[in-house]
């Protein structure tokens, strides 16, 4: 998908999460003013998150043209997806070297803890952003996870979660 087509969806996601989960900003504290590169290493673009309470923004960039950010979080798309959704443990991913963090570690820790406190997970919050199409969005996410689990080799993580390659 060309990045300009992706941008309205990302904007919708950013504003919806901010609207539905205002507590995230209080957990972020001063780190809400920072910017984060979220790098799904198996996709041809990165996301830049600026979680300012007054104007949260999520944007897509070509990997080599992303703006300077305070921190970068890199891993496979499905691992990052399950991480922000509270289905995977970030420390376990880090121990297995499937998650890479560079830059402002404190900001990343704050972001991780803030997202982990979202009941039902951030992904559920995002699918609700699609209004009448939220059912379709939820089915798409579920299908994507199934494909990811099959194609990328899911394995048990304490019997419940997943740990994608």
């Amino acid at each position, binding site marked *: 998908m060309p990045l300009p087509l992706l941008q309205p969806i990302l904007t919708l996601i950013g504003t919806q999460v901010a609207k539905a989960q205002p507590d995230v900003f209080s957990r972020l504290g001063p780190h809400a003013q920072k910017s984060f590169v979220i790098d799904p290493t198996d996709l041809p673009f990165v996301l830049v998150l600026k979680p300012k309470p007054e104007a949260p923004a999520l944007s897509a960039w070509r990997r080599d043209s992303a703006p300077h950010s305070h921190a970068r979080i890199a891993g496979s798309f499905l691992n990052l997806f399950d991480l922000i959704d509270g289905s995977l443990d970030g420390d376990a991913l880090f121990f297995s070297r499937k998650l890479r963090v560079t830059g402002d570690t404190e900001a990343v820790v704050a972001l991780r*803890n803030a997202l982990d406190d979202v009941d039902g997970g951030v992904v559920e919050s995002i699918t609700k952003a699609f209004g009448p199409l939220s059912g379709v969005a939820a089915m798409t996410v579920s299908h994507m996870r199934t494909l990811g689990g099959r194609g990328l080799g899911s394995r048990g993580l304490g019997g419940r979660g997943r740990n994608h390659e």
Partner: protein
Amino acid sequence: MNDHVAPRRPELVCPAGTPASLRTAVDAGADAVYCGLQNATNARNFPGLNFSPDELGKSVDYAHARGAKVLLAVNTFPPAGQFQLWKDAIGIAASVAADAIIVADIGVAAYAAREFPQLRLHLSVQAGASSPEAIRFHCEEFNVRRVVLPRILTVAEIADIHRQIPCEIEAFVFGNIGMMAEGRCSLTNYVTGVSTNMDGVCSPAADVHYEEEADGTLTTKLGSFVIDRYGCGENGGYPTICKGRYSCSAQPEPYYAFEEPRSLNLSALLPDLMRAGVTALKIEGRQRSRAYVRSVVAAFRKAVDEIMTGKQPSLTDLIALTEGHKETQGAFQSKSWR
């Protein structure tokens, strides 16, 4: 251990770093959940973690409605002239009807016992009380009802202590195996200027830096000190000085000077611990995610319930959640562990 002694049903005490994590722990089968406030009064004072007083109150209501207890960790040591924050924390615990507070400092214990005698006191692992004499002192002076034992005792020693003290015993069964009170924490304090035991922060994230090279080698640093260097694909650990790998003139090859990055897992010793008189089994990890809490709590809930019905527990493989993907029974099995 005497196999003829029937195991007692222990309380499963589980970690919660956030309100969502607390609800996850309760829903996964925790009998009790322990948590902390968003300040230096608890030993997991990390950014984005912990509870506001309002969140704590709502969380206590959630747990109590489902038959679970909430224990508030007020388990750091007040620096000189800063006692008010700890007094406030105890007052908050009482006001939200927390089921107990977990304390380490004798001044905090004395204040709580005097001002809030109805509030149940547990002695934190941070207090480092490992002898019957030390534990009895806290029971007699502050009416401590439970001691969380340091992770330096064998199961046989725990059984022996149980016979000599007037309070309950809580023992760690899974998670980080940090020793806390025997000096290693002073190392991170020396490097960062922030204290594990007073500020509640071990290896503060602001001082942690990760550097990955093109060949996949990962260097972890705390301040200006290199803690470890992992080869491409080698499992990693926390950037704590006590689990770092160092070289020196006497030992030029990098080695773990204190201990390896690995986690405690006493799944296989559960029946012995329950026969030894342990009242509560504690899972470490308030800094971990809901996914960790869900998996570990559910695994131990199932194992304990199976033991209580006379079955051989089917132990879930939790290795993916352990530090460095290695686990140990530490000193609980043998004193040969360092």
